[in-house]
């Protein structure tokens, strides 16, 4: 029996896998020790669990456990990486480069660095959402110290050319940071191959708990950071604060499961996503956003022209999806990511992001397809724009009274 509403917003967050939750629970009640306590077995037991989890996080991305620093999540990792590297290397230059389609945790951190006297270049992307390497090359300056590019875009799911950007940055001695919050468990990440210096991770996008993340800090060649959180000198001084053992254990287990299962899981999810794509393709005037090839298997982002996004969300309330991203959908602004792709405002306004995951079923996808057909038809009956288009009016020639 189908349970409603159907969760299709796995890029906003994922449920904690029951196997992960089971592994976390003992660390709340019985094994509650502080991993920093050196004088008794409570501390040793907690420390061992933290280090095992660190190994698991490192293993998913083929890194050394000593390169993993625990944080409260990808937002904190991004803050530590950008501010920490920009400030530490300020003597070599005060210019950073990032993309206009980055997550707010990068963009807002860059704004803060601008207030601190750094210069930031925000690059346009191609209309498929990917960075143009020539544009990136051209933006490099002698004083560029840090480049930050996300691995996978949170709204449109496109995979940026991280390996190529890494080569460019390494050849010029520029620190390269990658926000990989949306990438773990979705794309293979090999930090022994990729010339990435800093990489941000989140647990809750990969079936782990909220409130825990990590920052990869390369050891060879060594990358230095100015700490942003001061205190007891935990995490080799990179990030003070008592480690939340149960959260860390959860992230470790979630990343271990991702490593073991992502191969088969991604193929299953890709089949469901393609089923959804095929199912909505026969609706008139559906526009797909972002490159379809260089894309994670669980993301579909579509604009349903002449239907406004918020009313569509209301109409398909049996589906938990998002319009724009979860962080911006409370505002009336159309998605800045779609605008950066050059989408007209009305298409940006009518975009829906479907993100599938571990617990999505074929039955749920079939229900979603039928619902979309019914409701888009109904909303278009209500839409004066649809009526005009059916009458042959070119909407771009209409003089609108903007308000």
């Amino acid at each position, binding site marked *: 029996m189908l349970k409603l509403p159907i969760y299709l917003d796995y890029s906003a967050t994922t449920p904690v896998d029951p196997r992960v939750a089971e592994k976390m629970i003992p660390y709340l009640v019985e094994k509650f020790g502080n991993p920093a306590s050196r004088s008794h077995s409570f501390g040793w037991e907690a420390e061992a669990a933290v280090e095992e989890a660190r190994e698991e996080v490192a293993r998913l991305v083929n890194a050394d456990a000593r390169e993993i620093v625990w944080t409260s999540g990808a937002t904190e990792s991004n803050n530590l990486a950008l501010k920490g590297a920009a400030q530490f290397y300020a003597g070599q230059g005060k210019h950073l480069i990032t993309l206009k389609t980055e997550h707010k945790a990068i963009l807002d951190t860059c704004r803060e660095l601008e207030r601190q006297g750094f210069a930031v270049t925000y690059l346009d992307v191609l209309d498929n959402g990917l960075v143009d390497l020539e544009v990136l090359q051209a933006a490099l300056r002698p004083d560029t110290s840090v480049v930050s590019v996300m691995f996978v875009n949170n709204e449109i799911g496109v995979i940026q050319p991280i390996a190529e950007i890494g080569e460019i940055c390494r050849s010029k001695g520029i620190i390269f940071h990658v926000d990989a919050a949306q990438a773990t468990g979705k794309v293979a990440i090999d930090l022994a191959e990729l010339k990435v210096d800093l990489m941000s991770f989140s647990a809750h996008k990969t079936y782990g708990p909220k409130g825990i993340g990590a920052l990869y800090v390369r050891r060879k060649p060594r990358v230095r950071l100015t700490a942003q959180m001061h205190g007891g000198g935990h995490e080799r001084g990179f990030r003070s604060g008592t480690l939340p053992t149960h959260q860390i254990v959860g992230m470790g287990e979630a990343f271990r499961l991702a490593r073991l299962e992502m191969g088969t899981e991604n193929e299953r999810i890709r089949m469901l996503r393609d089923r959804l794509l095929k199912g909505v393709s026969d609706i008139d005037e559906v526009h797909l956003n972002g490159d379809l090839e260089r894309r994670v298997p669980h993301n579909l982002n579509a604009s349903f022209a*002449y*239907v*406004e*996004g*918020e*009313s569509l969300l*209301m109409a398909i309330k049996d589906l938990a999806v998002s319009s724009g991203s979860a962080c911006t959908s*409370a505002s*009336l602004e*159309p998605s800045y990511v779609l605008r950066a792709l050059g989408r*007209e*405002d*009305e298409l940006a*306004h009518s975009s829906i992001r479907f993100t599938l995951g571990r617990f999505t079923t074929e039955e749920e996808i079939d229900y979603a397809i039928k619902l979309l057909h019914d409701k888009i038809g109904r909303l278009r*009956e*209500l*839409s*004066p*724009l*649809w*009526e005009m288009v059916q009458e042959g009016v070119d*909407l771009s020639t209409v003089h*609108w*009274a*903007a*308000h």
Partner: protein
Amino acid sequence: MAYSIKVLDHYENPRNVGSFAKEEEGVATGMVGAPACGDVMKLQIKVGKGGVIEDAKFKTYGCGSAIASSSLVTEWVKGRTIDQALEIKNTQIAEELALPPVKIHCSILAEDAIKAAVADYKKKHSEPVAA
């Protein structure tokens, strides 16, 4: 975003959806808003003897509150004279539908749609209308 019961009712069961033929006697059209802003309302009124609005229809591209605001005004303008219709204020629409502050612009747009439809009627019938 939580919607009021009245917004949900108008959204689920919009009143008077549709269009009159533009050339039909007594029909006037008001179209306000812009696709880039996320709202376009088309309100049509059919004015009979004595300047009384006998029927009204709408189509709206916009959020649930915009659809509800335009659905509501089609109910409210019916039976009024065009001058009485102009007395409908956005604050009354917002109050009736319990619109939150971020959705007040929907009620303003609905008021503008009435004004635009009446202006279109007056343009087509330049002779003064008996009250």
